[in-house]
C-alpha cells in the first residue's frame, strides 16, 4: 500500500506530501504519527511546506495548528511547490566585508528591539562543544575552532569567535552575530550560510555580521550601533 503522506527533507524545510486521494483525517493522523515517532529528528525543522491533498481552508488551518502547537514548527506553507525556489544557496557564499558601506544602509534598529531570554556562557567554548539555546547566547570567553553555537536569537562573543555560529536558527534573519574578534569558520544567520573569504584580513575591533539582502555582511560594530 502506498503511504498517504510522504516526508521529504528540503534544504531549509520539511516537505510533507499528501496523496491526492487521501482522506484528510487519515492524513492528519499519519502525519502526527510520523512526526511523533521521530520527534528528535524533526525537532530541527522549523518550516514545513505541505504539498498536495487539495485541502480546504479549514483543513489547512487545522493541520497548521497541529504542526505549530504539537511539533513546534515555526511556519507552515501550503502548496508552495510552484513558488520560486528557496534563495538559499547550496554552496556557502563568502561573507562580505563592507568597510565602506554607507552608514544609512547599516542602520539596524533590530539590535535594540530584541527582548527575550539569553544565556551567558562564562568560559571558553572549546573544540567539540556545542551550545544550543532558544534565545540569545553571550559567551564571555572565546569560541574555538570546532565549537558550535546555535541560537534562535542573536550571538555575542566577548572574545574571539573562531568556530561556527548560527544565529536565528529557527529562520529569523534579523538576528546578528557579533564578536570582539570575528573570525568564524562558518557563519549562519537564519537560512543563510557564509564562510570567510580565503584572504580575509583579521581586524582588531569588534564586528557585527548580519543579513543585508541575501548575503551575510560584516561591518565594524561601532558603525552599526550608531
Amino acid at each position: 500500500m502506498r503511504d498517504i503522506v510522504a516526508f521529504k527533507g528540503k534544504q531549509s524545510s520539511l516537505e510533507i506530501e499528501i496523496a491526492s486521494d487521501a482522506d484528510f483525517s487519515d492524513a492528519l493522523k499519519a502525519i502526527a504519527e510520523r512526526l511523533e515517532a521521530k520527534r528528535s529528528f524533526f525537532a530541527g525543522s522549523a518550516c514545513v511546506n505541505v504539498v498536495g491533498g487539495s485541502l480546504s481552508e479549514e483543513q489547512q488551518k487545522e493541520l497548521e495548528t497541529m504542526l505549530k502547537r504539537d511539533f513546534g514548527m515555526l511556519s507552515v506553507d501550503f502548496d508552495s511547490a510552484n513558488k520560486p525556489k528557496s534563495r538559499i544557496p547550496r554552496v556557502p557564499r563568502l561573507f562580505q566585508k563592507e568597510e565602506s558601506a554607507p552608514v544609512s544602509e547599516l542602520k539596524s534598529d533590530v539590535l535594540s528591539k530584541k527582548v527575550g531570554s539569553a544565556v551567558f556562557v562564562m568560559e571558553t567554548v572549546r573544540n567539540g562543544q556545542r551550545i544550543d539555546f532558544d534565545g540569545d547566547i553571550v559567551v564571555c570567553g572565546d569560541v574555538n575552532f570546532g565549537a558550535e553555537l546555535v541560537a534562535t536569537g542573536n550571538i555575542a562573543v566577548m572574545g574571539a569567535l573562531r568556530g561556527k555560529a548560527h544565529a536565528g536558527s529557527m529562520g529569523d534573519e534579523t538576528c546578528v552575530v557579533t564578536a570582539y574578534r570575528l573570525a568564524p569558520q562558518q557563519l549562519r544567520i537564519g537560512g543563510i550560510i557564509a564562510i570567510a573569504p580565503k584572504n580575509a584580513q583579521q581586524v582588531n575591533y569588534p564586528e557585527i555580521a548580519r543579513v543585508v539582502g541575501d548575503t551575510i555582511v560584516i561591518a565594524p560594530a561601532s558603525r552599526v550601533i550608531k
Partner: protein
Amino acid sequence: MGEAIVITSGKGGVGKTTTTANLGTGLAMRGHKVVLVDADIGLRNLDVVIGLENRIVYDIVDVVEGNCKLKNALIKDKRTEGLYLLPAAQTRDKTAVSNEQMTKLVSELKEEFEYVLIDCPAGIEHGFKNAIVAADKAIVVTVPEVSAVRDADRIIGLLLANEVSYVKLIINRLRKDMIDAGNMLDIDDTLEILSVDLLGIVPEDSEIIRSSNIGEPVVIKAETPAGIAYRNIVARILGEDVPLMELKKEPTGFLSTLKRLFGRK
C-alpha cells in the same frame, strides 16, 4: 599523600610517552618518589622508552584482576632511585580496566608515592576517560601544528568537563627556524587559542629519538636542549620559578661548525 598527574594530548605522536618518561625520571632525579602508570593498554610503549621492557612480569591488568599484588607489578628503574613503572598489559585492550578499578589503583599508589604520572592513550574514548578519572592535575602536550592544537583544545574541554581543573600545557617539538619562517604556530598563537598556562617548551631535538630507542630518557643528559627543557619543566612542577629557555637555531657559521666538531664529547 601524593598527587596524580595525567599526561594527555588527544592527538597521537606528539610526545606523551616521552614526556611522561622524562618528567618521571626528572622528578625522581630531584629526590622524589615517582611511579609511572602506563594507561595505554594494548599499545604500551612507556616501558620501551624508559628501558624496562625486559623486566615486565606482571602488569596493570594483573593487578586489577587480582593475579598479583600491586607491589609485585611495580618495576624499579635501573638507573634512577625512587622511580617505578606500572606497565600496561600488551595482550589486552582498554576495556580490561574499569574507571572504578583505575580510581582505586591510583589512590593506592598515591599513598605510597609523591607523584603518580599517568601516560594517557591517544583519543577520547574509554582509554582516555580511564586515564583521567583518577587524575588531580593534567599536563596537555601539544606540538605547534594546527591539528594538534585543535585536539588539545578538545582535550582541555573534556578535562574541564570532567572536573580536572588544573591543566597546564607543554609545547613539544618546537622549531625556531620554522616559526621564524612563519611555517609553524608560534607560542603566543597557541597559548591564545588554548588559554591555559604554559608549563614549558621542548625544542625539537634529534637526541629524543635516539634516547627513546635505547631506552634512556634524555632528561638524564646534561647538555641536550630537550634534556634542559625537561629539567626546567620538572623544576616548575616542583614550584620553582624558571624562565623559559631561549630557543636557538642550530648555528651554521664556519666558527660554530668548528666548535661543534671539536666540542663533541
